[in-house]
Each structure stands twice: as structure tokens, then as C-alpha cells.
């Protein structure tokens, strides 16, 4: 039962933008050319035995990184099987070489092991590496063998998990400290109570006037408590504190929180993705040209790349594994929302990005330099209006606006958003 055959929506979709940005294509080209360069650098060796000399291992490492790493790891299953021990698993060395050169042919020949492998890995066919010479393959195997034999060293990307642990630990400490403080305070209260009663007893033994006795034995009534300075202090403090908190919260709820950069469940870095790798914003934020929401990417979009890329540059496997586990457990990632417009304001990304041609950075700031995203713009109505006053309508070539631009041509100043109703209430409030 496939769900897509059941639900046929009646929406006629507009043409979607080509999602792959040219930068991405360029980097792919670079990658492929690198593959070729390495393919031509080869070491002469015809032996069917796996070499053990360090040069071979080193050469193997370079080749492995260039050709194999995308789908294979030594000790982990990725798209393809873990390669450790492949030399003893596979039927023969020649088999390995044939399979690397053209796996399809081996599978088509009906080779039992190849077919089994093929089925086991969801019928994903390995790319044919016809350019790899036999000795290259042996070098790679040498590297694999050497890696496999290495004693398990502590993994390098431990930073994040430990900090997470320390976080947890520190919050645990915090709780302990809090409980300790409460206990101490309670003890103090008891001691003070004891002191008061002791003093009373002491004073009772002294000769005192009636007036003074009355003061000592004055009962604690509701009136005396409510009039006591301590109580009034407490009330004033609570009222002021709660009032202030309410104001802050309401400011947050209408989005007046410039610089707000909350911790996200996954330490996703725009600096790496948008800045370093120059992935187009629209690749992940697919809704930005279509509708109101730019949309936070669904996990399957992350998995397009992270299906293969399991190691992060900053955080190793720690963060990326969260995506994988979300995907595998079918549990959505609960991101913390940064830009919160109040419900009474309607903002549509498609109008601004698609029709108006506004850059993402205009409102979101230098997002490609942010490791942690923060709210760049003020997001107040004044800020919106200000932009609508200053911005020219990019309407040329759009027949929707042509009539309006013509209508406006009498003046020499370019048509501003303000003049096509950009300041009208029901453009944003309805």
C-alpha cells in the first residue's frame, strides 16, 4: 500500500525551482576530477598478497579517502559494508578486484556471494571503478587491513558528548546545591525560632513593665503579619518580579527579542552548511519561494547528505547521529523557534523572496557566518514599515506590476512598496 497512490491532491503545483545550486554542482565537479587525478597515480605491484609496507598503506589511505569513503568505512556499515576483514570474507583476491572494477558484471554472472551482498544492501550497486589498477586495490586493502588491526583508540570527536555530560552533571549539581540551600535555610529558620523562644524565656525571668511584657508576648495575627516589613518586602518583590517576567515574556511572544540565540537540540551550524559548503538556502528551506513558511527542513532532507556524511567537522558523530536516530525512530526534531511573529501579523516568505527578490540576509542577517542562529532583525512593525517605505518595487518583467509602474511613471522617483499599498493594514493584519 503506497500512500501516494491514495491521496491525489487537487493542487496544481507551480514549477519548483531547480534545487541544486550551481556551487554544489561545482564542488561535485571538483570531487570527480580529484577522483581521476588519484586514479592515474598508481604504484606498480602485481602481487596478489596484501602489501604491508607503510608506503603502500599511505597510498591506500589516499585512495580510500578519495574513492571509497563516501560509501564505506573500515569498521562501520555505511551505504556499503564495513571493509575490515574483507580479504578473508571474500571468495578470493581476484574476486575483490573484479568486483571493484565492475560489480554489476560480477553480480550478473550469478556469483553467489556477490548476489547475496547485492540483496543484503538493498540492491544498491557499487560504482564501477574501472580506473583503479589492481595494485591500487591492493594498496587500499593494505590500508584497510592496517586500520582494522589498529587498537581501538578513544574516538576524536568526544567533545560534544562530554560537554553534554558535564551539562547534565552540572545541572545535577545545581539541584543538589539547591536542595542543600533549602535545607540550610530551614535549619536557620528552626534555629531562629529556638533563639526567639529562648530569649522570651530569658526576658520573662527579668522584671519588666506590663507594656514591655505585652510587646514580648504580642500574638502573631494576620494583621501583624501583613503589616510586617518582611511580608511587604516579599509581596513587593514578587509583584515586581512577576510583572517584569510577564513583560519580558510578552515581548518574546511578539518577537521583540533581537539577538535571541537559543540552544538548539542539534548543534546545527549555518556557518558550515551555508557558509563553508555554500549550500543554497532553498535546498533545505524548500517552502521559501512557495508559501508563507520558509519551512524548517524535514529530516529526510538532512538525510539526503547525511546518509553518507556521518562525521561532522566540529562535533564528530555526536550531532549527526541525532539526525540519524530521529530518522530511524521516526521522531521529529523539536527545534526551538527563533523568529516569532505574533499571530495577528501575516508574513509570507514567497511574496518577499520569490516576488520581491529580497535576499535572505536582509532580514536574517549574515546567516552564513552563524554557528548558532540568532534573531538579527528587530521584527517590530516599525522595522517592517521602514523597509516598505525604502524598498523599490522590483516589478519590471512582471505583468502584475506593469500597469502600476506605468501609472506611477509620472513621477521620477522609483515606485516604492509603500505606494502599492505596502503600508495598508490588511496587507498583514486579517
Amino acid at each position, binding site marked *: 500500500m503506497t500512500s501516494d497512490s491514495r491521496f491525489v491532491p487537487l493542487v496544481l503545483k507551480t514549477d519548483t525551482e531547480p534545487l541544486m545550486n550551481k556551487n554544489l554542482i561545482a564542488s561535485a565537479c571538483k570531487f570527480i576530477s580529484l577522483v581521476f587525478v588519484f586514479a592515474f597515480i598508481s604504484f606498480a605491484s602485481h602481487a596478489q598478497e596484501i602489501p604491508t609496507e607503510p608506503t603502500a598503506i599511505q597510498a591506500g589511505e589516499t585512495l580510500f579517502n578519495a574513492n571509497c569513503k563516501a560509501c564505506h568505512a573500515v569498521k562501520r556499515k555505511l551505504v556499503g559494508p564495513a571493509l575490515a576483514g574483507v580479504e578473508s570474507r571474500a571468495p578470493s583476491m581476484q574476486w575483490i578486484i573484479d568486483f571493484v572494477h565492475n560489480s554489476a558484471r560480477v553480480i550478473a554472472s550469478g556469483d553467489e556471494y556477490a548476489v547475496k551482498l547485492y540483496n543484503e544492501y538493498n540492491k544498491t550497486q557499487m560504482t564501477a571503478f574501472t580506473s583503479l589498477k589492481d595494485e591500487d586495490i591492493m594498496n587500499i586493502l593494505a590500508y584497510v587491513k592496517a586500520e582494522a588491526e589498529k587498537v581501538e583508540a578513544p574516538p576524536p570527536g568526544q567533545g560534544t558528548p562530554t560537554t553534554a555530560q558535564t551539562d547534565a552533571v552540572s545541572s545535577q549539581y545545581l539541584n543538589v546545591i539547591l536542595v542543600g540551600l533549602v535545607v540550610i535555610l530551614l535549619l536557620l529558620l528552626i534555629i531562629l525560632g529556638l533563639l526567639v523562644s529562648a530569649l522570651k524565656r530569658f526576658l520573662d525571668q527579668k522584671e519588666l513593665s506590663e507594656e514591655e511584657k505585652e510587646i514580648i508576648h504580642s500574638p502573631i495575627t494576620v494583621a501583624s503579619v501583613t503589616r510586617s516589613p518582611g511580608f511587604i518586602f516579599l509581596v513587593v518583590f514578587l509583584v515586581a*518580579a512577576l510583572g517584569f*517576567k510577564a513583560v519580558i515574556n510578552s515581548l518574546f511572544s511578539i518577537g521583540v527579542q533581537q539577538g535571541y540565540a537559543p540552544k538548539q537540540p542539534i548543534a546545527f551550524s549555518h556557518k558550515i552548511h551555508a557558509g563553508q559548503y555554500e549550500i543554497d538556502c532553498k535546498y533545505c528551506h524548500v517552502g521559501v*519561494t512557495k508559501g508563507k513558511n520558509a519551512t524548517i527542513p524535514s529530516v*529526510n532532507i538532512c538525510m539526503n547528505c547525511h546518509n553518507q556524511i556521518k562525521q561532522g567537522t566540529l562535533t564528530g558523530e555526536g550531532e549527526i547521529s541525532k539526525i540519524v536516530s530521529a530518522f530511524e525512530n521516526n521522531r521529529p526534531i523539536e527545534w526551538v523557534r527563533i523568529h516569532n511573529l505574533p499571530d495577528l501579523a501575516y508574513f509570507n516568505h514567497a511574496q518577499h523572496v520569490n516576488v520581491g527578490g529580497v535576499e535572505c540576509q536582509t532580514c536574517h542577517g549574515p546567516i552564513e557566518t552563524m554557528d548558532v542562529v540568532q534573531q538579527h532583525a528587530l521584527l517590530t512593525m516599525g522595522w517592517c514599515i521602514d523597509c516598505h517605505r525604502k524598498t523599490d518595487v522590483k516589478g519590471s518583467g512582471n505583468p*502584475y506590476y506593469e500597469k502600476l509602474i506605468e501609472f506611477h511613471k509620472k513621477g521620477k522617483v522609483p515606485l516604492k512598496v509603500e505606494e*502599492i499599498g505596502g503600508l495598508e493594514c*490588511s496587507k498583514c493584519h486579517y
Partner: protein
Amino acid sequence: MEESKKVYWKGIEQLANSQEFVKHAPHEFAQPGPEEDLGHSRRDFLKMMGFGVSAVALAACEAPVRKAIPYVNKPMDTEASIADYFASTYINGGEYCSILVKTREGRPIKIEGNALSKVTNGGTNAQVEASVLSLYDNARLRGPKSGTKRIEWADMDSQITAKLNEVSGAGGQIRIVSNTILSPSTLAVLERFRAKYPTTQIVQYDQVSAYGMLKANEESFGSAFIPSYDFSKANVIVGIGADFLGNWLSSSIEFTQQYAKTREVSEEKRDMSRHYQFETVLSITGANADYRTQIKASQEGAVVAALYNLLAGKAGRPTVASGDAKANLLSKAADDLWNSRGKALVVAGSNDKAVQLLVNAINDILGSYGSTINTSLPVNYKKGDDQAMATFVSDAEAGRIGAVIFYNCNPVYDYPAGEKLAAAIKKIGLSVCTNSKEDETATLVNYKAPDHHFLESWNDAEPKRNHFSLSQPSITPIFKSRSAQESFLTWAGESNTDYFEFVKNSWRTRFFGTQTLFADFQNFWDKCLYDGVYDLPVAAAAPVTFNGDVNGAAGSIASTYKSGQWEVVIYESGNVGNGSQANNPLLQELPDPITKVVWDHYVTVAPKDANGINFSESFTKFATIKVNGKTVKLPVMVQPGQTPGTIGIPLGYGRTKAGKVADNIGVNAYPLVSIVNGSLGYSSSNVEFAITDERFQLAQTQTHNTFMGRQTVIQEVDLGSFKKDVTAGTFDPKISTWLDPEHKTDPELVSIWKGHDYPNHHWGMSIDLNTCIGCGSCIVACNVENNVALVGREEVIARREMHWLRIDRYYSSDAKADDWRGVEEASENPEVVFQPMLCQHCNNAPCETVCPVAATTHSTEGLNQMTYNRCIGTRYCANNCPYKVRRFNWFKYHDNSQFEQVNPAMNTDIGKMVLNPDVTVRSRGVMEKCTFCVQRIQLSKLNARKEKRRVKDGEVVTACQAACATGAIVFGDMNDPESKISKLLKIRPLIKDRPTINDKDADNPRAYQVLEEIGIKPNIWYLRKVRNKDIASA
């Protein structure tokens, strides 16, 4: 100067110089101030304040976290914030509508008509529009139940199957009871069930039965069916107690569309149908008739017989013996019918086969068969068999039934012998129901196996022969319900119980071979699902041979009906209908088209008979009504147009287990229905009626009855005059100015403002009073689209209903124009006009000039904008609005437990799923009003800009326009001379070379604006009502 030796002292204390005085003398105040008394100073206060604020500033660094949760696997064709539409089918018993379901983020939020359907042609009605909220009804069953205990489906299935086998093995009788089943696949499923348990019989009944008509057609033409009627081909229509614009034959959508086609008039087409109505209770159909005659319920048969005799006389056929029926206008109607032979149609509402047989004979004389009636295209809306149902109840009482399954029906409530059935259910060994709620029937049965809501399920329907329609889920089932068909298949022991596969396979075997367009079944199926409908060729209307015994029928009529001192008519209510959707507050708060009552049940009584009720008071009184020995007590609704000596009781109220909304409103009128001539009779002459002294206030949205002679509000003309002169009777207001003391100036030419331009669009609306039948589906559509709050009975009584769009219903008055008191009273048999009233989006809007905070302003597209977040609630605008269309939020209607019962859409977690995310939910203390569906305008504009084009005419459709089956509402851009509205109204800019000026006039002779003379220049035009009356009688 000698030094004075006098001693002055301030007071007696100083003179005395007491110790006390000396102690206090240096102090300014005799008593210490309160601050000092408290022992802490202002400074301390500030310290505390500072500490508090800084402490919280630290604490507040942690913002209230709002989450954004994307999909894990985003479905291919769904984008957040972009609506998807699914073609589907509304099925509620025999009621049918082909629909488009608008979903946002996987939630259905609005229902619209499917224009591809050849049955409903894109129309909807109030029941269909409201049904989207029934999906989110909190009273729905959460999952299967055995008695009152939760149970797992598998356990229930094994228990039920075991019992069914036991009953079947012992030869016990099994019954499946349901309302009319429209779905051929469901019927096939039930056949599978019957194949497994051969003693099964399927009993179908209808809340409002048409069994008499089925029987009459069986006698007349040899088979029991209901033909297709085509009002659009009729020049003369005579209705005798048939509320065909209401819910007669569950076909209101089709009939209103057809009827409206015959009612369109213009300068070019100066002709329209003529409609006579003979009826007891003033129905929406009677309200739209050109000539309406009041008759008693017992006279219906006699009027039909008399009409037959008149026509038989003309046609040279033998007449029948008939009692004396003195109905006004009957011979005039007969003359008109005879003159339009072949283009005439007579329909009667009676469920008596004798009456229907005579109606068939009349239509046969008139040659209607083959033109206005198509017998080769029978409809399936009413298949209820009154006799089979009566037999079932008596069998159950006698203990002859071994097992019963109620398939989505509630006979304990809506079958007249429901009480008997309720007692009998206990005698049945196994009772199961698939109702989605624990309603009156479900609470009595052993097993509750809740079915999905129609928006959650797969299904198909055949409303008319060879017209098919698919229903597809537009949301994942909310609760642990299961498709009833799947339940039947499971109980029948089928191996494959997937109903989706079942429907798909039955379409494969039945329809795939009938077409040549698609070679691959999947493509064919996708296309059917996309369209929602699939039609096979239908035979053209052909004449048929009538073989009825008219004399026998006339004899039966004469002997059956005796007039009584009081007569009662039981009819379907104009808002809650037959009561199956009574728990839908959208319908409870929808004013009945005629009485304008909401949330209350009543009896309609003619003004003459309402002794002791003072009309000038807002209170009415209770009356006791005894029908066939059963007594009910209901408040009196004084109804002009009601035949004196008769009372009307609407069905649909008196629910006891429908849910929070509907429970305990009024009384159940179904038990008052009796069996007449073998089928259910919805009138009776065995009635006692007395008005008591107990006072009651009905919640009504409109309490004044007539338009009090204000021609500027309602303009109408008779067709005779209109034919001669299209401007006849037009009220063209003139005013005088200092330049023109002669009172000759057109008010639209006078303004204190200079005209301005709408350079882009100029939105305008036209409402045709001739094709508006007053049904109210636009009101429900508006409510759903715009998140309009429902306020409940008490608030409506306080005049605080929130509807943005209302339909004013005006009666004519017999009083002279200068009799100010008299014009407020309606005639005994008044003419009725319906006028939808909404914000007129005035170009010189009076509301805008009085708002102190500029919360209501004008846009450059002609819209009168209302900005909620700016509004401070002075209500100046509402006071200054001449149309009284601005509504004020007196309370916070959302997230307020006080309104949870009446407004679940804003107060329960499930209910909130229906809200339109593009429209703000308003809070307390702000004004609101019609926005011309600005969210739809903005969306269409955005789509146009994205696709680099202008907005196409017809692209922006307001919710009310979409819901209007008759097409009375037209909306569009008046700056575009090619738009439908510009052409319909013949829009002309007042200054010739400025086509975009705000001042536009309509040259259509029927177009007028309400209160034009006050110069506020609305953007809504009304088209004058034209009645097809002779000039003499006008």
C-alpha cells in the same frame, strides 16, 4: 513703636505647656506618618524593586520556548502553509454533495463544492458547509466499546462473529438497519455479509420519508423509483406542500440551482418562471414563490385533486370525485400550467401515495415526463421503506430478531416508533451499531463499533443512475474508529477487509472497461480520484406511459383526510435539518431562514391564533400541543404566512445524547409522526392546542419583520412592469444642494471628498435578490472561513451574535405607507424578500472617519480594512455604520470555558483543528466585520505575482460566493472592464477618462445600492427583486 507685651499662644496646649506638648513641639506632624510607622522607607522600596527586577532579568534570560517541529518524512505534495484540495463526497444518510476538501497541514478546514459534478455542480448547502466541524466533534467515540467498557477491535470482532454464527446457525433473523445507502460498494459489502449470514435483511429508512412517492411511481410506471426533476426547464412551477428549495428529497442543492436559472432576469432576458406555492407552513420555497396560497395540511390532497380536475377538464380526460377545495389562485395556476404544457412542473410534498399518484397524473397531462421529469435518470436519495421498517420494529418487539446492526443511523431518535424500538433492542440477543457517537440508539446496543467520519474514509456513491462519486480520506483518522464497511467485511469472515481495496476493485470491474481514455487502471483511478466523480452516459428524458388508478387515489384522499380545528405539520428545520447534525453549533447558531430563530425549538402559529401574545414584547409563551395522544410543550413562534388553524413543528430538536451542544434543546417531534395510508405522514388533524401562561424568550437574530416601507433598502418590481420598462419602480434618490434647490442632484455626485484612484484593483460585489433564496449556506461558509465565533443563545438574545454576514428577511405589510405602527406588522400572507447584508465596503465609509485610533481604514483596492490589533473597542464605528454590520467581541470567545459548549471550535483541542490558520482569532474588546475574504484576495494576488501575470477574473472567490449554489453573489475587480462583475453591473467610472476612479456607477437597470442617498458609495450593488406577477394584482 512700643514693644508689645502681649503673649500669643498657638493653642491651649501651649498655654498649659504640658510635657506632652513639649515632647511633640519640634515635629512637623502631630502623628508620625504612615511610612515611619511601617519602619521602612521609600528608599527600601526602590531597593527591593531594583533587586526584584534585576533578579528576574537574570531569570528571564530563558525565553518562553516555542518549538518548530518539521516533518520527519515530508509528504511529496504537501507544503506547510499551502492548502491542498481533495475531491471527495459528503454523504449523510441519503444526503449527497460532491465536494472539495481544503486541508492545511493535514487538517480539513473548509468544504467547498466540486464544480466537476454533474449532480451538485459545485453547489453546497448549510449542512454540507457545517459538516467539517462535525469531524472535530468532541462527542465522537474514541474507540470501540462493549456496553460501557472500552474494548479492543480484535476482541470485539471475535465476540461479534461468534454471536453472529450462533444466531445464524440457529436460523435466527439478522437485520442491518440504516438510512438510505448511496454507496454501491457499501451495498456490495453488505451483500458479502448476507452471503455469510443468509438470514440477514437490510432495512433502509429515511428520517423524512418519500416512501409514498416510491409506491405511487410503482403504481404509475411499474417500478419504485424517484425520477430526476429539472426545474430549469419549467416555465410554470406549482408546489403543493413541497419545500423543494428546503430539503425536499434531499436535493436542495440541485433544485435551487435549477430554480435560480429560471429566475434570472436582465435587460436582455426579460422573462422568468412563474412559481405558485400552496402550503401550510411558510417555507423557504413559499417565501420565494410569486403567488403563495395558504392551505390547511388536510387540504393538500384535495388541492391536488382539484388541480387534476381543472387540468383534466382542459385535456378532455375524465375528472375524479374530489372534495371541495377552495384554494385561491388554483384555477389561475391551472391556466398557466396548461398554457405552458411541456414546460411545466407540479410537485407535492405529501408522503401519501394517493396524493403522489394524482400528481403523477397531473404531470402526465402536462407532458412533464420527458421534459421536466426524467424517469430514465432515477435518484437514490430516498430509498427508505416505511413498511419494512415498521415490520422490523414489530418483529423486534415480538422477539423475532436474533441480531441487529445499526449502520450509521439513529432510529431510537428519528424513527417515529423509536420508543418502542428502544424497548425492543433489549430483547435482541446481539445489537451492534457503527454510529460514530454514543447517541440515543448507540447507548442501548451491546457493541459500539464507531465508523470513521466521511472525511476520514474511503467510499463511493451513486446519487443518480450512472453518476458516480468517490470519497477519499483527507485526514488520518483522529480516533480509533474503523470504517464500517471494514467491520462488515471482518464480521463476514472475509480475508481481505481493506475497504479501500474493495472500492478500488469494484471500480476496476465496473468502470475501467467503460472508458477508452486510459489504458492503465491506475491512471484511470487517479483521474477519478482527482475529479471526485465519474459519469456514464445517461439516457435522455423520454415520455412514459402513466398507468395509475386516479379514481382510486381520489377516493382514498377523500376518505383519509378530515380537517380538524387544529392541524399540525411536522417539517425539517431550516438550520439543523433532520437532527443528525444537531450537535454542530454552526447549524444551531445559523438562523432559520424564515423564523430567524437560533438555538431554540418552537411551534409556528399564525398571528390570528396567537391569543394572549403581545407582539410588541420580546417574550412569547409556551403552548401545549397534543398530537394523536402525545403531548409536547414548546414556545410559540408567531409566524406570518402560517395558515390560521394550523401549527408547524420543526424536526431535528429534542436530542438527548447528541453531545454538549444539542442536548436538551426543545423536544423530539419524530414521535408525533404517524402512519397514513401505509407510509409516514407528516401532518395530522387530531390535534389539541393551547397557549399557556408560561413566558419564554426565543433567541432570534431579527425581530422586526418588515422593511417599513423604506424603498432605499428593498426594491422590487413585478415582471409585467419590468418587461415594459426595465427601470419601472426604481427608487432613484435625489438630493438638493445649494446650487440645486430643486432636489434633483444624484447623491453620488456630491461628496466632501475628492475622488481618489484605485490604481490596481477595485473589488466589488453584486447580490441578486432574485436568485438569493435565503438558505443561509453563505453564513456558515463565512463562519468557517473567517473563524467567526459562535456565542450561544443568551448572547444572541443580547443581540451579540458575531455573524459577519446576515440574511435579512423582510415581509410585506398590508398597512398604508403612512401608518407607522401598522407597517411594522406583516400581512397574514406576506410576500417575502431575503437580503444578504454584510459590510458594504463604502468608499466614503462613515466608520472610518470616527475611529479615534485609525483602526479601520480604506485600502487602495476599495476594501474597508479592520485592524484588530489596533482597535481599542470604542465602538464608535459600529454606531456610525448605517448597515449595522460591525460586530463587537463582548467577550473572549476563545480559550474560555464559559463558551466551550457553544463554541468548541475555539475552546477544545480537537475543535481548534478546524480554525483557518490564515485568519486571526479575535480577542475580547475588538470590533470585527466582513473583510471581503481579504486572505483569499491576497492569496490570489500572490499566486498571480509568482506566475508573473494579472489576477484572472473569477480567481478570487469569496467564501459566501463559493457557497452560494444559485450564484446570487458575484465578486470581482471592477477596474477590469472584462470581469464578470463589470459586465453584469455594467460598471461605468463617473469620470470618463479615469477608469480607476473610486466613484463608479452601475448601468444595469436592476442594480441599486442600499441607502444610496446618504452618499457613502458602497462597493456592493444589489439587483432588484422581480416577481413574476401580473400588473393587475401587483
